């Protein structure tokens, strides 16, 4: 599907996205510094495609998701929905775009208002966008949505606390689907669930994507999940994309030393199997004061003087594989 639409305008495109959070200090509360949570991220998502965003905690992947959903205002950069810029739009003019994209959060417990029943929760986008103003029609639609996500329609009158975590996440997904969006952001949508429920929700997401032709930005730190459901994968480190490649390419021939280190940390199901682990030294540097040049150089096993001076851009290294590294083909001892 992706190949057919590749040369048309991407559904969602981010160009040099930046999000700096100010740190205020002193008596006057002046801005003394910035946390550079996202520092120049570009990617495009085609219709029906799943792009995964992986990285360790604090690398800015959730911030990217929130920026794309326009829950946070960008510091700079462009955000396009089917070629139209939506980054500077005020909330009032953003509404038609909100209908076309939605987000599913990590914690299914805090993302549902405990005082609303399932019908009210799932129909929230319908009511907000004025889709189906007739109450009976809305109810029928909610019933259909619940069925789509694998919940019995007669659960409509129940309150969120009567559901388990997995069921709550299904309610969240039903709500996100209510306005028939073309694009869904899953911000660690399965991370808070236990493994068997995770599998159910992932299968549900994949089925929905296939049936509804959804495009998805899947934010996760779980490489196994990402390998299972993505078309392409972007690896983030300290607010930047280190490597962006087709799933198969990334998992079989990773180029960036950081990607290699991440992949080598994935546990193998076979206990007798051996693998050369790439052990990274040190900690992730602070996003307040990121290293000069390549942000990864302080922990990179192959870093040179050049890495401290020039910041490597994300360039195509092989077809379908973009890498931000000066030495993409170097072997790691």
């Amino acid at each position, binding site marked *: 599907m992706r190949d057919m639409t590749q040369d048309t305008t991407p559904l969602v495109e981010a160009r040099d996205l930046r999000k700096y959070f100010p740190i205020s200090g002193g008596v006057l509360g002046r801005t003394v510094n910035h946390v550079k949570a996202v520092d120049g991220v570009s990617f495009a998502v085609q219709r029906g495609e799943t792009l995964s965003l992986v990285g360790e905690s604090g690398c800015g992947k959730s911030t990217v998701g929130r920026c794309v959903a326009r829950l946070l205002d960008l510091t700079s950069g462009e955000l396009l929905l089917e070629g139209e810029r939506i980054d500077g739009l005020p909330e009032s003019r953003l509404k038609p775009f909100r209908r076309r994209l939605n987000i599913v*959060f990590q914690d299914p417990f805090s993302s549902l*208002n405990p005082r*609303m029943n399932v019908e009210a929760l799932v129909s929230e986008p319908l009511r907000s*966008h004025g889709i189906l103003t007739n109450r009976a029609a809305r109810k029928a639609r909610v019933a259909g949505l619940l069925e789509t996500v694998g919940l019995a329609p007669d659960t409509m009158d129940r309150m969120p606390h009567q559901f388990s975590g997995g069921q709550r996440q299904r309610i969240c997904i039903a709500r996100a689907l209510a306005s028939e969006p073309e694009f869904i952001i899953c911000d660690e949508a399965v991370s808070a669930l236990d493994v068997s429920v995770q599998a159910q929700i992932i299968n549900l997401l994949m089925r929905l994507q296939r049936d509804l032709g959804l495009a998805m930005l899947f934010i996760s730190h779980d490489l196994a999940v990402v390998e299972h459901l993505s078309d392409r994968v972007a690896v983030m480190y300290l607010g930047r994309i280190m490597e962006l490649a087709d799933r198969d390419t990334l998992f079989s021939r990773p180029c960036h030393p950081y990607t290699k280190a991440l992949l080598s940390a994935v546990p193998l199901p076979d206990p007798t199997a051996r693998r050369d682990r790439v052990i990274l030294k040190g900690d992730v540097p602070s996003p307040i004061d990121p290293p000069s040049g390549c942000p990864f150089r302080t922990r990179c096993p192959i870093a040179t003087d050049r890495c401290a001076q020039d910041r490597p851009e994300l360039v195509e290294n092989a077809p379908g594989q973009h890498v931000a590294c000066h030495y993409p083909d170097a072997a790691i001892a």
Partner: protein
Amino acid sequence: MTDFPDDPHKFAAAKPMPAILAVPPQRSALLRSIRRHPTMWLGGILLGAVVLMAVFAPLIANQDPAALNPAQRVRPPSAEALFGTDMLGRDIFSRCVYGARVSLIVGLGVALLASAVGMVIGLVAGFTRWADGIIMRVMDGMMSIPAILLAIALMTLMRGGSIFNVILAITLAEIPRVARLTRSAVLSVRELAYVEAAVACGTSRLGIIRQHILPNTLAPITVQATYICASAMITEAILSFIGAGLPTSIPSWGNIMAEGRALWQVKPNIVFFPAIFLSLTVLAVNLLGDGLRDAVDPRLAKRV
């Protein structure tokens, strides 16, 4: 490892186990609620009695509270005048009964008005970042003046002691407290993921306030409203006592006491009875508020 019976059907005839634990007697929902929140019920019943007294004042009071009787001045309590009479010969019992009306109207009026206005201000402050600083500094400024002083100043400005003016004066002094409380509740609720989800769903700011923020701030404000009600009753009594409140033609517990002030060493009954009424009513409202708070937020229950 004792011998097992080889025939499992042996057990079929076994008698049912006798109940070891006594089944707790089932109480009605009302009884259970009283047991769990006794203060709320005590306060509620007491307040209910005062409300009944105020509503049926013409039936309970045996004399016209404004009727002067110069021949019967400062009489001690008797069968005719249960609480005695004041310096103008008016029946103190009847005045006390009618005084409940003033206290309740002022208490309720201030509680409702201050909650409503304070809530709107708090919502605006909590939701619009640029207005927050300005609004809250104004509120802080108002709070720095003691409520009673502010009320006295306002009463002087309005030059007239009508019930409406009294309510207005006390309300203005109470608004900042509600605004503060609402703002803090809004700030904590609006960071929750479901508010963010609502934004992503395209819900307008007003819709978010109505559906998500308000229902979650109503509980603490209701509790605060009862405390405001109690403090408004006291402030009203103080205003009337010092003569800044209602004229004596409208009996209020405060101005009955004010009239008895000069004689309180020789005729303590003039001050004593309205004081008892005021104390009991304020106690009732406070008990109700404490009980409500415990019912709304059980975590705070045993702390005070």
